[in-house]
């Protein structure tokens, strides 16, 4: 490759969407900016292809930004650019009541997501990660569901706090002030928790189903296809790569990954809305990526292979999931969902890992990595991973069933806009990407896996879980009433549903109280939140007490000064 492009060009290209965001802010340029949005990620795509490997520090920017486009970052950059381009093409301009507002935040979030792929120092990564995650709040809430927006925001803010604390430790290590390993146990725990929220790890997944369901399709596609992948990239970047420090965490991470893989499938099949099913599928699929990274932690020699597997799997899952979210929306808007189902079958089969799909390749790479798992885990994974594929097949069957049987809105007035040709083109672009990407991957390891997946043995290895899943789905379908009892038994976000409902009631009650109070004279203290009341009131009472103390202390202080002056004279 001709190396004429400087490395910092990658970051500059990734930040091109910032121009669009700025354009949205100015009245005179907003129409142009909105039109330019679908092309904003293309410079980043070009940079992923053209900017040579290398790193450079931009010392004047913030606390010094290390631009580093390594092999992994390049793949995530390309994936993100592709998914965001498709999402921007699909984003229906008329669907939002504030199109410029939407486009501005969309561009800001895009810029953060693209830029975090090109930097490796903790502060800069955090900067762009936060830019992406916080801007997305505006996109999620543009669907009109305040409750989901709140869930997203609370999880995001807590995640950011975990992350910044973890990265303080990583930053100290990067400066060489902390002589120990790159990250100690606390740091590893924080990083795992922070990115765990982003990828919907079991226990930290409460935001994902409600958010995916509430977000407009383009946003859900960007979230599932690209933004949550930033969590994977973060784990790859900041977990102690191939070092002793992480070994103890390995089994824990593997266990969490396995739990997510099965939990997502089990809860997902009971769901009644297609987008929620897709969210649970994401939880499940990220579980598999987590397993690979856990193996890499447990066995330092497996780290590079684990990273390769996580990367390939992210590409495969990101493209397929984006295609599913957009396809689901098209099916909802189309006169008949039948022809769309045909298109949805490809990414569905790919996620299940059917032969000849990207899933078959990605799962094979994953298997290579998990094959290096230590002792007992090795055998357990051999047995459990195919079962997870059965679960995914069931989930996808459930998804397709829900899309196929969804009834059109009853009232004539509430018809939705038909899909635009541009939107359909975006979907077809994603489908094409799902079909070909991993098969024409330039990296030798992936190409080798692609060839290997075509051998008779692996064709069977990939086929039987899918066949078993299809059979199970068919049985469930024919059983009819027996299985339909399970539909809807668990609300979206399952165990978190009560907490989310509680938060909704809290805000509702506060708003009502504020409306009542507005006519009264200014309150010193707002109507305190129910559960927070005791703490807040306690703090307030402490304050009042302090004033009394201050008065007493002032007398005492004056006395002390007097005594001291007397003492000095004497």
């Amino acid at each position, binding site marked *: 490759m001709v190396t004429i492009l400087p490395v910092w060009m990658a970051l500059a290209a990734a930040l091109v969407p910032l121009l669009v965001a700025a354009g949205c802010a100015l009245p005179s340029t907003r129409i142009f900016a909105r039109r330019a949005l679908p092309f904003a990620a293309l410079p980043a795509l070009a940079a992923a292809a053209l900017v040579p490997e290398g790193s450079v520090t*931009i*010392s*004047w*920017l*913030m*606390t*010094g930004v290390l631009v580093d486009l390594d092999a992994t970052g390049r793949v995530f950059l390309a994936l993100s650019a592709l998914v965001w381009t498709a999402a921007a093409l699909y984003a229906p301009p008329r669907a939002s009541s504030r199109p410029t507002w939407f486009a501005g935040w969309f561009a800001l979030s895009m810029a953060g997501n693209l830029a975090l792929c090109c930097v490796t120092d903790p*502060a800069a990564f955090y*900067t762009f990660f*936060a*830019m992406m995650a*916080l801007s997305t709040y*505006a996109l999620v809430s543009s669907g009109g569901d305040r409750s989901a927006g709140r869930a997203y*925001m609370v999880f995001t*803010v*807590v995640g*950011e*706090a*975990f992350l*910044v*604390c973890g990265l*303080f*430790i990583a*930053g*100290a290590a990067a*400066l060489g*002030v*902390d002589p120990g390993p790159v990250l100690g146990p606390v740091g590893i725990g924080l990083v795992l928790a922070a990115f765990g929220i982003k990828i919907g790890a079991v226990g930290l997944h409460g935001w994902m189903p409600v958010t995916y369901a509430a977000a407009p399709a383009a946003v859900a596609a960007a979230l599932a296809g690209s933004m949550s992948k930033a969590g994977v990239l973060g784990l790859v970047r900041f977990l102690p790569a191939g070092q002793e420090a992480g070994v103890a965490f390995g089994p824990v991470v593997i266990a969490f990954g396995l739990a997510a893989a099965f939990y997502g499938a089990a809860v997902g099949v009971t769901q009644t809305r297609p987008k929620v099913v897709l969210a649970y599928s994401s939880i499940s699929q990220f579980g598999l990526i987590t397993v690979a990274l856990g193996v890499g932690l447990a066995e330092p020699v497996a780290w590079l292979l684990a990273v390769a597997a996580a990367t390939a799997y992210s590409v495969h899952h990101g493209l397929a999931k984006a295609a599913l979210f957009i396809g689901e929306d098209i099916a909802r808007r189309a006169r008949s969902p039948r022809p769309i189902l045909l298109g949805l079958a490809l990414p569905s089969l790919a996620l299940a890992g059917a032969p000849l799909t990207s899933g078959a390749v990605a799962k094979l790479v994953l298997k290579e990595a998990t094959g290096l798992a230590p002792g007992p885990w090795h055998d357990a994974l051999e047995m459990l991973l195919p079962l997870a594929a059965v679960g995914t097949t069931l989930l996808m069957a459930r998804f397709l069933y829900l899309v196929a049987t969804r009834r059109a809105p009853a009232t004539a007035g509430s018809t939705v806009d038909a899909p635009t040709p541009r939107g359909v083109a975006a979907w077809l672009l994603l489908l094409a990407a799902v079909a070909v990407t991993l098969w024409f991957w330039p990296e030798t390891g992936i190409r080798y896996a692609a060839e290997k997946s075509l051998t008779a043995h692996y064709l069977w290895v990939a086929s039987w879980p899918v066949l078993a899943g299809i059979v199970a789905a068919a049985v469930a379908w024919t059983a009819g009433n027996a299985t339909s009892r399970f539909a809807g038994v668990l609300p979206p976000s399952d165990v978190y549903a009560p907490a989310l409902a509680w938060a909704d009631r809290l805000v509702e009650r506060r708003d009502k109280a*504020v409306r009542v*109070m*507005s006519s009264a004279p*200014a*309150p*010193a*203290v*707002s*109507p*305190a939140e129910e559960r*927070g009341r005791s*703490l*807040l009131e306690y*703090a*307030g009472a402490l*304050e009042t007490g*302090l*004033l009394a*103390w*201050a*008065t007493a*202390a*002032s*007398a*005492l*202080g*004056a006395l*002390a*000064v007097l005594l*001291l*002056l007397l003492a*000095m004279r004497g």
Partner: protein
Amino acid sequence: MTWETTALVGAVGAPFLTAVLIFALGEHRDAARSRINLAGAALTVVAVVAAAVAARAGAPDAYPSAGIALLDIGFSLRADMLGALFAVVAGVLWLITTVYAIGYMSRASDRARFFGFFSVCVGSAIGIALSANLLTFFVFYEVLTLATYPLVIHSGTPAALKGGRTYLTYALPAGGALAAGVVWLNLIAGPVEFAAGGSLDPALASTHPGALIAIFALLILGVGVKAALFPLHGWLPAAMVAPAPVSSLLHAVAVVKAGVFGIARIVLEVYGPLGHELGVTQVLAALAGFTIIFGSVRALAQDDFKKRLAFSTVAQLSYITLGVALASPIAIAGGIAHLAHHAAMKITMFFTAGAVSEEVKAYRVSEFDGLGRRMPLTMTAFSLAAIGIVGVPPVAGFTSKWLLGVGSIDAGSGWVIAVLGISSVLNAAYFFPIIHRAWFRTPKPEWAHGPAAGKPEGDMRMIVPLVMTAAIGLAMGLLAGVALSPASWAQTVAAWEFPW
């Protein structure tokens, strides 16, 4: 006089001279007063910048200084990089605030008194910044205490008088404690000049350990009131009855930062390594950590916009205290940088409070629904400042938080990380709802279509300053790596302050 001496005397003298002229002009010559005030502020900016240039040129042991002999312990000024940073922050923000205040106070009464005492406050703050020893520091500190009182009670309402009383209840005994500490220290150690890395003789730690601890407590008690260190912070929210420019410059920058600046001088340039040896800085750090959480929790409960900002200030000031109390140059740099960073961000927010209350008569957070449509520039500036305080990059608040967090690991005080993490969540919990109300909630019908056609969203003398300070806050974070940024400046200072 060399140009350095001229700059020093000018930096402290210009605001006092401005005050004298304003008092002499009387109440009714508004145009002349404004012109003199702006000229005085501009002159001050030139002088403090010159002092900063002088400080940067001199090594820490070759400070340019202008001494005035007074008593046998000396009354002297000097420019060093730590003091110059505070002086430049106070001076530059004074100029911007003057423009704002002229707009804000255009319909208020007793303007001569207001602007006169305002100038005195700024002059004392710069005096505090450029003091070469504890005695000079103490004198300016007490002048500042007294000159702030007429500003707090400016409106003359019962609430204002009550706020003023609360302020004095806290501030006067603090002055006494500071005086006692200064005198006692003089008895033990002789005249105390500030010196990078600490000026006390290390031998004192073994001869007078008890006395040194007691003196430290007295000194911190003295400056801790202005630094709003728990449990000395109660006056600050009460003082929010003051007009917006007072809250903006004095209660977010000059007065409160004089307190934390005093802590920095005492911890770094009087006690130095002795503080860590005696264990007093650890106690101070713990107290600061508690104040951070406490202030943030209290801010959560405030519906009154200015009170919420005040409690946020209580918490944020302790970031600075915490930074200088930790045994790491990185943490110290974070604390010192936050002195400038917080100033730019918080002044923006108080400017916003004033602009909003003047323009649309909204005082409570619950009245802010859809305010972003009505006052887009103002609320954009506010939102930038708010996310900065929360610690969202690339606004300056993140830079100081980053240095503090990394520095706390360096200092071996990992618990600080937990404080910073919890604080970030709490900051988000009390600032994001304001942003949410302003931008994401349905506006009142009369706000939905923005400001009236062809009209600006408010008095431009108020809007332009707050947009400027927000831009400064953003630039200080975005360009933190540039040699003259507060963050880089603070890192240079910290390298001197922590040579051991």
